[in-house]
């Protein structure tokens, strides 16, 4: 039954001929030419297209980050009493404002929200279920084109900014973007000369990519699970993806409408958020954060799903507390909808609202803590291999702990009054978005890289790059906690010249450069592996989820024959290691443990 799909002992996987494909065919070689990619319905190809686009976005967002950290090494400081000096410095400040805004907008909308679901969810989810594709493959392709369409608007915004600063050209709609990625009103509707409408239209369209992907995944998990793949047989990555999809579907439409209202006010003067037109700026904040708080869980939940996979596989141990981790994912998704007001504690909203939001905010910390303890416990009595994906997973656990704990400071009302809108918040969210989500993303990319491309990357370079990134990351963001609690406000193009601020800013900038060089090394490792990497076996890690029961890269239909029947995804009994590092399945031994359920 499933024997045909299993990798052969002591050998790299032979791509299995089946379904009329030429021997040696896989999803990459199935169908030739650009059109076969642009019109593909194969979830795996869609995932790869997303990957290229999303990594390019990460690069652009990263360029902006390096730019803004560089500007903050020695910002121009002009005596506010000297109007001429201020006039000159203002041009530098305006430039900085565009850079920090675009860093945020590109990273949030084009990188971190789609990254894990669109790339890894798309590639892996159907295979982990044992399905041939997602429930709605055409909708999946449409999601990708929505992403591209939204991205085009952002490209327009970037071009408008570059042309304006280089040549003074004024494209229609404004130039660049200087509102912050949050587009707070009335600055964004009444004052900014940025390309606000193109940018918000771009985010609007990108939102549909998110919504349709979420819809597709929910339908797939409900409808395309083969008999025997019960909910509690699913890998935790799928629980995480499912929870994320629920948020994507319920929350993103709120952002879409909010952005349309913003456009209506800016373009048509409809008074909703601008008090000069009879509107309320705080209303905008409510609408915006009603989406954007759940959005941060869209970012981190799939990352947590990846971590569950990595820690179990590389400890060779059943994940500890499967049920609790699964339910925590759902709990986080639901609780994420009722805490948005914690972004607005000093906006002037009522004390009662503040108290309720503060109390609820602490509630969402608990399921996250449960997960962290479970991951750490999975290591106990494990058989731990420190491959590159595992390094990122362990890094995640430590950095997410810091990120989550600093959220406690911000959830406490009186302390938040002091810390909100300072660098403390910037550091907090970078620890959870970058130290956590990005690390999980990188770990997942390394983990599934051999499956996606049939090539092994260099472990040696991978580990070195990890250390550089880990050190660089902490050097960049830990000093930001310190200067934040000393009052350094965020979104500042320049700052008072005193050691507390200067030293910490410079430490931070140095860290950013170190981290960037680590990331360059990661990219180099991946690209090099495509050309010179060792051929990857079907199962280089000894994992037990179904995507590893098919060759690397997988065939067009995901499995060489009928899909294998899934057993407990974290039961590693029976997997034996070959001398070359690949793994094969000893069927007899697997059967001995087939019924030992650890849920």
């Amino acid at each position, binding site marked *: 039954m499933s024997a045909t799909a299993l990798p052969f002992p002591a050998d790299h996987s032979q791509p299995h001929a089946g379904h009329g494909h030429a021997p040696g065919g896989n999803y990459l070689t199935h169908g030739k030419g650009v059109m076969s990619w642009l019109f593909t319905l194969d979830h795996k190809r869609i995932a790869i297209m997303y990957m290229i686009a999303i990594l390019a976005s990460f690069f652009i967002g990263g360029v902006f980050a390096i730019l803004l950290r560089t500007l903050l090494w020695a910002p121009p400081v002009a005596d506010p*009493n000297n109007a001429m000096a201020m006039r000159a410095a203002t041009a530098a400040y305006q430039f900085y404002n565009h850079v920090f805004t675009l860093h945020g907008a590109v990273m949030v909308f084009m990188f971190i929200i789609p990254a894990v679901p669109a790339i890894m969810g798309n590639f892996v989810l159907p295979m982990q279920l044992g399905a041939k594709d997602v429930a709605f493959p055409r909708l999946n392709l449409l999601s990708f084109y929505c992403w591209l369409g939204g991205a085009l608007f952002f490209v327009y915004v970037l071009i408008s900014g570059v042309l304006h600063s280089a040549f003074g050209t004024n494209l229609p709609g404004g130039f660049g973007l200087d509102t912050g990625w949050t587009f707070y009103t009335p600055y964004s509707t009444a004052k900014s000369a940025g390309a606000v409408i193109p940018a918000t239209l771009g985010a609007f369209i990108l939102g549909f990519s998110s919504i349709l992907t979420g819809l597709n995944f929910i339908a797939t998990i409900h409808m395309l699970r083969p008999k025997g793949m019960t909910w509690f047989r699913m890998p935790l990555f799928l629980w995480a993806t499912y929870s994320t999809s629920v948020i994507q579907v319920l929350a993103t439409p709120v952002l879409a409408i909010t952005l349309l209202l913003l456009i209506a006010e800016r373009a048509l003067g409809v008074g909703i958020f601008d*008090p000069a037109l009879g509107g309320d700026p705080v209303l905008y904040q409510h609408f915006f954060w009603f989406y954007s708080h759940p959005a941060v869980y869209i970012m981190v939940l799939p990352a947590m799903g990846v971590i569950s996979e990595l820690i179990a596989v590389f400890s060779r141990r059943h994940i500890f507390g499967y049920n609790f981790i699964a339910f925590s994912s759902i709990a986080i998704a639901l609780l994420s909808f009722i805490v948005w007001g914690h972004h607005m504690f*000093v906006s002037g909203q009522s004390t009662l609202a503040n108290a309720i939001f*503060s109390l609820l905010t602490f509630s969402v910390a*608990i399921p996250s803590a449960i997960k962290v303890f479970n991951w750490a416990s999975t290591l106990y009595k494990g058989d731990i291999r420190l491959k590159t994906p595992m390094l990122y997973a362990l890094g995640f656990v430590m950095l997410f702990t810091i990120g989550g704990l600093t959220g406690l*400071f911000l959830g406490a009302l*009186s*302390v938040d009054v002091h810390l909100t809108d300072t660098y403390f918040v910037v550091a907090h969210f970078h620890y959870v978005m970058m130290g956590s989500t990005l690390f999980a993303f990188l770990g997942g990319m390394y983990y599934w890289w051999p499956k996606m491309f049939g090539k092994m990357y260099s472990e040696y370079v991978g580990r070195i790059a990890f250390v550089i990134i880990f050190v660089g990351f902490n050097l960049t963001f830990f000093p930001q906690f310190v200067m934040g609690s000393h009052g350094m406000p965020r979104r500042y193009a320049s700052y008072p010249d005193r050691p507390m601020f200067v030293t910490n800013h410079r430490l931070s900038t140095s860290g950013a450069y170190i981290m960037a060089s680590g990331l360059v090394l990661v990219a180099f490792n991946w690209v090099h592996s495509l050309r010179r990497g060792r051929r990857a076996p079907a199962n280089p890690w000894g994992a037990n989820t179904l995507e590893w029961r098919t060759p690397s890269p997988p065939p067009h239909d995901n499995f060489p024959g009928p899909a294998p029947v899934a057993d407990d995804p974290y039961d590693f009994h029976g997997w034996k290691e070959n001398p070359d590092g690949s793994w094969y399945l000893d069927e007899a031994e697997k059967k001995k443990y087939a019924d030992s359920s650890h849920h």
Partner: protein
Amino acid sequence: MLTAYLAQANDPTFWLPKQASTVSDNVDGLFTFVYWLSVFFFLVITAMVVYFTLKYRHRPGQTRESAAGHSTALELTWTIIPTLLVLPIFYYGFRGFMDMQVEPPNPYEINVIGKMWSWTYEYPGGVITDELHIPKDVPVRFVLRSDDVLHSFFIPEFRTKKDVVPGRYNRYWVKATQLSPEGGTKPWDIFCAEYCGDNHSTMLSKVWVHEKPEFDAWFKKASDPYIGRSLIQVGETFYKQRGCATCHSTEKDAVIQGPSFRNLFGSQVEMTDGTKLTADENYIRESVLYPQAKIHKGFGAVMPSFLGQFTDRDIDAINWFLKSISDKYPKENLGPGGVIGTGSEPPAGGKPTPNLQPGAQGSPAGGGASTGTGGAVTRPATTAPGAKPGTAAPATPPKPSTGIPDPAPTPAPK
């Protein structure tokens, strides 16, 4: 000993600035509690990760026995304990916040106006200034108003912050418990903490905390810009604080929006209609009060009028200032305008308070000035009863009232 310990608790630490208000100790106390809790749990998790990774590292040829895959007891433990720990964090945060929200009776009220990109303070009694001075140990309520977009009024040493929202008034109160540095002569920072456009990062201000007598003295000086200053200095103060500096520089030939003031007075000016005249006292007066009457050639008709905002005495002072930066005006003729103490008080030879530097003496130490949008116009000071601007120095000037009763003598400082 306790007071010594508590006084030391006020000092800046690695994480936090000096504590200077009644709410600072709650904020810092809770911060410290959460901090050590975080350190503890971070060490626990890191220790688990590092220890387990090292101890259970794969060694070739070794096999492991399987371990339990779950433990309800552990799950309940690490659910219940964190829940119990976050509840007091919420509670003390809420309590501290309530202290910030509930005002004591009869606070001293100051209007704070934020606009792109400066702060202005309006005091009872009509003082309008761009520097914040408050007395120690007196509850002060800030009524926050924005003229344009969102701003946020943030004073780190007080641990206070509130958004300044256009279309509504936000309020918060503070009671300073420490003098600002060097006996109240140096200020603390005030930051704008909500992104508001180009000069968000230079929308800075300063706050001085004085003992009551020094505060009264500052207030008196601020009420009447002529006290303790020469006419040249008064003119310079108007230049900086009333919106002139936004458009007119004092550097030779440097144009911001309007003509530079350097070497303006006494020079030949050509108008758009071709007439030429000398920029004398009459020309300056007309430009301030009726700027559209004659437009300097090469400039647009954009200057707002200051009619009703300056008295003739004020324009006198402005003229003196312009003379002092003009090469057309001989230095030896500057004498009358340069004499200190032409205000309603006796000349400042008598008893300058030694360390008091309210900063409003026309020097750049005053900090954030009018870098607002072009043509920023400040309202004339609403006059307190009896203190009519523009009158000749009255024999006994009425004491501007701060409205704050002198505090009862306080016991040892907290």
